[in-house]
């Protein structure tokens, strides 16, 4: 790939297509958007294939000072960014396909908004300049506002207003912290900043400022309440991209900024992350249990899953961080697919009320199979993507805090309860309602959307090595960086002393002391 600016091209293709879309009619705009996203997917595959695993930390680097001031066009990716870019370019054609028939109003603008989202997502993950990152990161929400606000449901204004208020607060604080950092370190180049040792006392404030932004994006409890509303109001493809990629920005932020730039502060504030995450797992899972709106239920389950990401990231060990990344990828696919599944039946009956459905296994058997697979993946069944992530993240957490691991592992029980309860009410039971009886099974287009996700979910579950390998070296670099602040676990097993202990069945008292 010598010299070929593949990352810039990946940004350029959807950007140009977005502009052209605005001048086309609905049909051509759809085809152009699909073509552009498929080209980006192809480029993404080239990117992944030519990524040198174990090679330089930053690859495909492009640097140009030609922009203005200290604000440079600096792109480059490591393994984390590669995987998240792959997730974005993989989901994007599926989003376009999901909107093929569902969206009939202002189609060119809609397609342009999605293409713009793709540009900004890729840009966020590829940016190596702090302010370039900031622009992509914040601007990424603009097309999302548009998608919710124009093509959303009845309450779209309230949802986008809430979305805006939350994000604004976080962004402002993060921007101030970024300004201070560039003054202090004298650079805006992210790889340099990642190796800059900020004073320990300042780290806490910087960490909290970034936390304000990332916690909202994640979203972490208690700043999660924008998410259910945004999901409920967003059109299907909007929900897919929101759950699939936008929620990963927070996790990426923690990984890229909070941990390597402020290791001491991260270590000191573990209690905050662990506390909020443990509350989130139990609280939002229980809330998910009582939802009657399918999208809200899945939205709340997303909050619970993302909490496992945060504990994994802040476990300060390899399993935790790799697990967190795997959940981000797995959750991106699975929750995206679940929103597609909701969209499929929403398109037929125009309601998200769970109780309006029932017995779909009878007239929509193919749908039932896909929905079952994604339900099981969401529950974290071994053999699916989410299991690998959850296992590793919780395993990493256990090494730091057994309490947090216990509380967060209860998520596997609650998750099974709310997802199976959902599946039972929608797919199982008898087929009694006439309008539900009239619903046809998946069309070829819908199968074409769900089948690729299903394949990747199983691939990640059975052979996750493909996804673990690209980030292995980056995790090592990160661990080396944060090693000095690593918290002590609460397990601390002592060495064994078998000779002092009589064998079992001879009256030994080996219990607690």
């Amino acid at each position, binding site marked *: 790939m010598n010299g070929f600016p593949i990352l810039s091209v990946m940004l350029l293709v959807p950007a140009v297509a977005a502009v052209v879309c605005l001048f086309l009619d609905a049909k051509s705009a759809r085809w152009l958007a699909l073509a552009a996203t498929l080209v980006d997917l192809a480029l993404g595959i080239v990117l992944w294939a030519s990524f040198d695993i174990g090679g330089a930390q930053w690859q495909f680097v492009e640097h140009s000072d030609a922009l203005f001031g200290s604000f440079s066009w600096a792109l480059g990716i490591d393994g984390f960014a590669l995987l998240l870019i792959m997730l974005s370019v993989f989901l994007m054609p599926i989003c376009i396909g999901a909107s093929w028939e569902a969206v009939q109003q202002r189609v060119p603008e809609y397609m342009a908004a999605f293409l713009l989202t793709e540009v900004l997502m890729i840009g966020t993950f590829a940016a190596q300049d702090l302010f370039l990152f900031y622009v992509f990161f914040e601007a990424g929400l603009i097309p999302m506002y548009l998608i919710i606000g124009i093509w959303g449901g009845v309450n779209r204004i309230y949802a986008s207003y809430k979305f805006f208020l939350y994000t604004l607060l976080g962004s402002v604080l993060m921007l101030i912290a970024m300004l201070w950092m560039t003054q202090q370190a004298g650079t805006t180049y992210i790889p340099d900043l990642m190796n800059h040792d900020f004073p320990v006392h300042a780290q806490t404030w910087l960490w909290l400022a970034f936390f304000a932004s990332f916690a909202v994006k994640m979203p972490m409890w208690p700043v999660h309440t924008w998410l259910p509303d945004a999901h409920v109001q967003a059109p299907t493809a909007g929900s897919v991209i929101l759950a699939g990629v936008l929620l990963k920005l927070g996790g990426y932020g923690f990984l890229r900024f909070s941990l390597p730039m402020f290791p001491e502060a991260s270590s000191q504030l573990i209690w905050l992350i662990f506390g909020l995450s443990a509350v989130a797992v139990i609280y939002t899972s229980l809330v998910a249990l009582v939802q009657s709106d399918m999208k809200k239920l899945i939205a709340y389950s997303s909050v619970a899953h993302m909490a496992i990401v945060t504990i994994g990231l802040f476990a300060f060990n390899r399993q935790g961080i790799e697990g967190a990344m795997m959940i981000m990828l797995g959750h991106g696919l699975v929750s995206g697919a679940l929103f597609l599944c909701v969209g499929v039946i929403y398109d037929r009956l125009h309601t998200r009320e769970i109780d309006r459905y029932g017995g779909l296994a009878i007239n929509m058997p193919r749908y039932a199979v896909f929905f079952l697979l994604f339900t099981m993946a969401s529950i974290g069944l071994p053999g699916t993507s989410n299991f690998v992530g959850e296992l590793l993240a919780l395993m990493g957490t256990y090494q730091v805090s057994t309490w947090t691991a216990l509380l967060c592992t209860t998520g596997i029980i609650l998750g099974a309860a709310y997802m199976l309860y959902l599946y039972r009410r929608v797919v199982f039971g008898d087929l009694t309602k006439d309008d539900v009886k009239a619903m046809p099974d998946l069309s070829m287009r819908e199968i074409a959307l769900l089948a690729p996700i299903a394949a990747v979910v199983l691939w990640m579950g059975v052979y996750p090595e493909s996804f673990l390998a690209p980030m292995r070296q980056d995790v090592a670099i990160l661990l080396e960086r944060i090693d000095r602040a690593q918290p002590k676990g609460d397990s601390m097993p002592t060495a*064994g002393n078998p000779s002092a202990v009589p064998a079992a069945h001879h009256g030994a008292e080996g219990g607690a002391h």
Partner: protein
Amino acid sequence: MTSIQFIVFLPLLAAAFAGLSNRAFGTLVPKVVTTGALFIACALSWPIFIGFLTGSNEAGVAPVFTWMQSGTLDVSWALRVDALTAVMLVVVTSVSFLVHLYSWGYMSEDPDQPRFFAYLSLFTFAMLMLVTANNLIQMFFGWEGVGLASYLLIGFWFRKPSANAAAIKAFVVNRVGDLGFMLGIFGTYLVFNTVSIPEILAAAPGMAGSTIGFLGGRFDTMTVLCLLLFVGAMGKSAQLGLHTWLPDAMEGPTPVSALIHAATMVTAGVFMVCRLSPMFETSATAMTVITVVGAATCFFAATIGTVQTDIKRVIAYSTCSQLGYMFFAAGVGAYGAAMFHLFTHAFFKALLFLGAGSVIHSMHHEQDMRCYGGLRKHIPVTFWGMMAGTLAITGVGIYEVGGFAGYHSKDAIIESAFAAGSGGAFWAGVIAALLTSFYSWRLMFLTFWGKPRWATSEHVQHAVHDGHGHHGHEDAHVEPGHGDVADNPRAEDAGSEPHVHGPGEEDMHEGTGGYHPHESPIVMLIPLIVLSMGAVFTGYFFHPFFIDPESAGAFWKGSLFFNEHLAHATHEIPTWAKLSATVAMLLGLVTAWYAYIVNKELPAKFADHFRLLYRFLLNKWYFDELYHFIFVRPAFALGRLFWKAGDEGTIDRFGPNGSAAVVSFGSRLTGRLQSGYLYSYAFVMLIGLTAAITWAVTR
């Protein structure tokens, strides 16, 4: 030993074919493919097992490929075959093959047969992955895989609300156990820095006496790890406290109950403890807990079994009780005896379930034993099969000569408990043996002896009116079995004369209601006959390999911790202790005979007299009610509270909806911007801010 790949992956391929080709090839092709795959797997498994019996096979591991690697955590897909696995291989593939075959007959009227056979084969694959696991995480894969298959099969008749509820309950209660299993895996990795089973077992003795921090306290390391793992075993094997899902799982088709909820899946917990026996041996406390839980379950489930009226529920509680036996055998260190009972139990319990299925089939899906009676002559093959199973489970045999399967395996457990000095477990085992004999013979007498009481059954009435044989399963199963005695205060114990639901007694032609039960088709009888052979002979043939002190060590070859000292001691216990199980069995038989053949008024009188005790047993010790009250209802109530009072009442109110000022600002904005363009203002502000600051920085 390359045949192991075929054994494990053929069922997976068959399941994928049968499931994904749903109805494209009709019903026959998927049935042939899945049953054929299982026949091949079974035919390949027995030579492996025989190789271990003769001592010509050595333990080995067949690698498949890497699963996940994260630092020192190195997990591979691999198939381990040793003596312990070989035992499970023959159990799983044999029972699975027979159940596949049996289902040709039992499910013949069901329109969804491809799906059914796909689930059965999928289950078999997952179970084989579990028993061939060489690391804890692959074991967990199989563990969850069988859980999935169990969930799907319990809810197979998904139109039935009760089946769906039972399926969810099974999955969620198992997940409670899995929480323990997962924490156990995490802790084990933390301590041993590996999840490979042989490496853990090699290092475990060296960790005895170590302490570890857990949830704020400091405890003995091995005790913590073993107890966490044991919680997982309790869930899967339905031990006291986490047993509530198993009786409800009877909502699934009966062949499923035979395969999953009797012979194989529910024994996974016992298998896990035996597989990790060198680890459990390092913690006396954990072993004591296992013994107590096992003995308590064994007794408790047997008490409930004595009053249930649904034929499948009696056998379900019986399974729960027999699993308790296996656990306390493991708890006292007699792992060989635990595995032996697992082995024999698989055959006779599958036989009892398939026999019950045959009875249900011939009685047109009636499951209430109060509506049976006098079936001995009408379905003779089923009767003799059930008889073999009952002789096996109650442990009929002659001292110093030999007997049916349970005589060898169950008595070995009771004797081991005595030899290990565990008096509580010994007496629990003996009393449970009495109860086992009582409820098993009660089942036999109510079903096969006495006068027909068929006319009282709504199912039978339907059959007679509609001209029987034209009912699809779907129709017959929409109504949950109306033996839900807990709701029926009139339902005393199944006693003398039918006095529950039914038409006026004058309608009956001697209680038959004009109904003629038919013996099941030959595909259902062959499995019964084969399993009867197992119930009769496995105990006698295989005890030298599994438990005898002279020869068993050579068979197990270290694949489980075989305590030769204990095995010798078991042989030297006093004669009265050896005979106690047989005496208990005889007492149970006589009591059942007296109460259900001679003096048929007795059970009703007993139920009247000991009303509280009877209701306590009938309602299964009120576990379901208790759990509903302390877990299910609070979970929903808390969910609603967090949602309404937390998210909406607090976070949104003081957050985005904000203080009065923000609210008025918001409403003014939205008021002015009714056209729907608030978002544009929002991001214009954001862009403005960004631009301003960017300008400030780059100036």
